[in-house]
């Protein structure tokens, strides 16, 4: 009765092999590396970049132990930090000649030394949280009300010009918070205004009220549109943050949405929160201006002076563009930019949407400047760049598109740049953590010591108290640790110091299952059961108890996971995984060991489970 069929052993062996494989990367340690990634959405990192990095290092006489391209970035690994710093300087000089306008982010990083075949299997070391590796953590709250107010403001302008177009007379349009109030004098105007809003402004819903002799039509943003606007605002802010964070030269920045209106920014390895805040909080502006195409302006290309009333900016390729100083439309007037495809000419384009005010200006300007080029400038850190120069081909309004001479990815990049130019809604820092690198290393060693010492003492005690069965329990506990580390590595869940505490606690609690089993086996033996029957009954009866107690612990763990944030979450993840792995190791695996050892012996006389003490009065467990 104490035998496992072959398939059960097969499961154990396969599980252990997989676990060992995924735990393996954690043992290789890390080597200093330099990471090259793109600083602009217009710059792509590819194998050509890798070749450049290789060449640069060869020229500088620096030996890299490995150079690899992983789809987004080129990583070069070095044997020591001295070479790493030298290499960074060399690559910086070669790839980023102009420090004020970097095309690439050259960042110091640590790379796992695990062999590449492990990486191909997606076996990576555990992902360490900021409290273990050091860095800056920020939580930003996006002011959604401001985003909605901004939207309502631009909608009210749009309504005003639409009413004018249709010659509907009104007694004034005003924005009241996030609603738009339109005063109307007669029922006919009210009806046509309502029809107009229904027809042209899908985002708005209206309610009407009589206001003395007049009528008042109140338009508010529909709930689903509100959600969409908020979502867009958040996404746009994330894109903008990505662009700005790139400047910091962080190897693996994390920028994530959290909840409905929050963004978490994690910058491993950064130690200067003030600089981070300065860069993140910066505002960028977008401007549309006419290109100066006078003869003097064209002479600038060949080294002439910039004519009066014009300015010179580089375009994305670095060649100069001379534009007039007069600003037609700013980023404030730009409500949307989307990459698309023009069906007639079969070419990619970018559609822009301006608000009513912008549209009005654009209409006048385009009428007067037909077939002349117009530039879109992006200002960041006080420096402008022409991100698009296009010729006006017709009368433009609130909606128009830029097309020609771009492929799909260029169109996407342009749309991104147009949208990312500014933040959709203001943000406020509501949480900030900076962890120094020494503290991170300290935390790792503290967590490691806690787990290892506790583990050693428990295994020693179990072996002394339960003899061979205790040793089996200890082995099961080791397997539990192995599985836990493997699952964490596989899921790439963030391991934090509370997570390490949870690991220690999980091991402390996992031994409970084995104690339950061992005590039960002893009890069966005490009651006179044969060794084989005792083992069988011990495992069978303990199982119900183990299941009950683990489920109740799991309920607590899941509640922590659901409602916890930050450190609590880090704790809860490991806690829950630990409970699940312990069910496998403490029951299934340890039973396998016991079966393997004792199961085949038909006439088993005794089992090594420590002292089975029997009261002198025979067999009486429950006498009174």
């Amino acid at each position, binding site marked *: *009765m104490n035998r496992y069929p072959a398939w059960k052993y097969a499961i154990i062996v396969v599980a252990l092999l997989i676990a060992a494989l995924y735990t393996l990367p954690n043992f290789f340690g890390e080597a200093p590396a330099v990471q090259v990634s793109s600083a602009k959405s217009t710059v792509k990192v590819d194998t050509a970049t890798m070749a450049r990095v290789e060449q640069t290092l060869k020229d500088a006489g620096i030996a890299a132990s490995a150079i690899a391209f992983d789809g987004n970035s080129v990583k070069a690994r070095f044997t020591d930090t001295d070479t790493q710093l030298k290499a960074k300087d060399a690559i910086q000089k070669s790839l980023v000649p102009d420090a004020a306008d970097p095309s690439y982010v050259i960042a110091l990083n640590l790379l796992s030394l695990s062999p590449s075949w492990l990486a191909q299997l997606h076996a990576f070391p555990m992902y360490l949280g900021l409290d273990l590796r050091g860095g800056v953590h920020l*939580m930003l*709250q996006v002011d959604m009300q401001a985003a909605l107010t901004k939207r309502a403001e631009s909608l009210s302008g749009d309504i005003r010009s639409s009413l004018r177009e249709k010659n509907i007379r009104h007694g004034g349009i005003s924005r009241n918070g996030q609603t738009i109030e339109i005063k109307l004098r007669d029922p006919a105007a009210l009806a046509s205004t309502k029809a107009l809003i229904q027809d042209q402004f899908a985002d708005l819903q209206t309610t009407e009220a009589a206001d003395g002799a007049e009528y008042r039509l109140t338009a508010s943003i529909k709930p689903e549109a509100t959600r969409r606007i908020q979502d867009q605002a958040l996404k746009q802010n994330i894109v903008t943050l990505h662009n700005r964070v790139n400047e910091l030269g962080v190897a693996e920045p994390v920028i994530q949405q959290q909840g409905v209106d929050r963004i978490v920014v994690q910058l491993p390895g950064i130690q200067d929160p*003030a600089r981070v805040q300065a860069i993140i909080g910066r505002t960028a502006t977008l401007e549309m201006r006419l290109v100066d195409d006078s003869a003097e302006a064209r002479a600038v290309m060949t080294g002439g002076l910039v004519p009066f009333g014009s300015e010179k900016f580089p375009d994305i390729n670095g060649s100069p563009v001379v534009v007039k100083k007069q600003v037609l439309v700013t980023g404030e007037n730009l409500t949307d930019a989307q990459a698309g495809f023009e069906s007639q000419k079969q070419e990619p384009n970018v559609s822009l949407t301006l608000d009513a005010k912008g549209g009005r200006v654009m209409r006048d300007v385009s009428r007067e400047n037909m077939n002349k080029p117009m530039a879109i400038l992006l200002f960041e850190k006080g420096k402008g760049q022409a991100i698009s120069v296009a010729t006006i081909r017709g009368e433009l309004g609130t909606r128009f598109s830029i097309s020609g001479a771009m492929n799909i990815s260029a169109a996407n990049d342009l749309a991104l740049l147009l949208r990312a130019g500014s933040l959709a809604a203001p943000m406020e*820092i*509501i*949480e*900030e953590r*900076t*962890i*120094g690198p*020494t503290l991170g290393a*300290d*935390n790792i060693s*503290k*967590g490691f*010591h*806690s787990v290892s*010492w*506790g*583990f050693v003492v428990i295994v020693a*005690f179990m072996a*002394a108290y339960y003899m061979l069965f205790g040793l089996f329990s200890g082995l099961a506990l080791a397997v539990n640790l192995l599985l836990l580390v493997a699952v964490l590595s596989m899921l790439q869940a963030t391991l934090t*110091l*509370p997570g390490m*505490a949870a690991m*220690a606690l999980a091991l*402390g609690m996992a*031994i*409970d299952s084995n*104690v*339950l089993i061992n*005590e039960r086996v002893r009890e069966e033996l005490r009651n006179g*059961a044969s060794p084989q*029957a005792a083992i069988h009954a011990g495992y*069978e009866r303990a199982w*119900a108890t183990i299941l*009950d*107690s683990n489920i*109740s*612990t799991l*309920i*607590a*763990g899941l*509640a*922590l996971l*659901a*409602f*916890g944030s*930050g450190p*609590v979450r880090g704790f*809860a993840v490991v*806690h829950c995984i630990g409970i699940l792995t312990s069910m496998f190791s403490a029951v299934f695996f340890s039973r396998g060991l016991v079966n393997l050892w004792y199961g085949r012996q038909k006439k088993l006389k005794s089992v090594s489970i420590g*002292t089975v*003490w029997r*009261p*002198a009065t025979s*067999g009486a467990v*429950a006498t*009174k």
Partner: protein
Amino acid sequence: MEFFKIRRDIPFMRHALVFNIISFATFALAVFFLITRGLHLSVEFTGGTLMEVNYTQAANVGKIRDTVAGLGLTDVQVQNFGTSRDVMIRLPAQKGVSTAQQSANVLAALKAADPDVTLRRTEFVGPQVGEELAHDGLKALGMVVFGIMVYLAFRFEWKYAVAAIIANLHDVVIILGFFAFFQWEFSLAVLAAVLAVLGYSVNESVVIFDRIRENFRRYRKMNTIQIIDNAITSTISRTIITHGSTQIMVLSMLLFGGPTLFYFALALTIGILFGIYSSVFVAAAIAMWLGIKREDLIKASAKKDEDPNDPNAGATV
């Protein structure tokens, strides 16, 4: 080795009333301290800035306090953190000053006073986040209590669910009482520990209840009190050894985990110690007062003489 050579069932339930009175007194005391002293909440809950700085030599806390006070900041706490060389500074949330500025100012002032200082970490939490955390913590507590009660009511019976939850909430309140009495810092990690204790200590009650259920099936001649006494007696060695093992781990955290994990481990220690007490003496006693009966648990199998799953049927006395 065998630590527990118990000849006959220990009559725990004979003294149930005494235990319950002790429990109630401890509980009342904990509530009293919680009300009068309150919890010393960490920056995570209250909002504000926390800085940890490190000196190469033992830090002069008094001097640091003066330096920080010289910046015109009020209500600043400066204390050693773990070692004499590490210092923790708590600054209340201030309006109009960005956090980075605030911690940068303080660090600059400290550097001016003693160049031998390095910043280990800073932490800023906005007041709205703190409120949310407290809220979420309570929600999590509610969910844990609810989830466990439903599960126990489903697996056993409502009386057991009520008894287990009362016993374990009593643990939680006592842990909080300790934190209030000693004014230890109550951080998010401690909250996690408290909730983990709740799950862990229910675990304990479940083991005993499980044995009670089994005994009801097995020993048909015993009355409820005998059944409970037997259940506790036969699980006591497992209880002590399991808790001992967990405590070894927690102790290891207490010793090696550093100041960050200290209060976390401390909360667990109190939780484990009271967890043993409450599940052995409180949960079972409450279940007894609530009047658990054999019929409650074995309606379906009441007609059968033996548990069909019991391979040892008839092997016992």
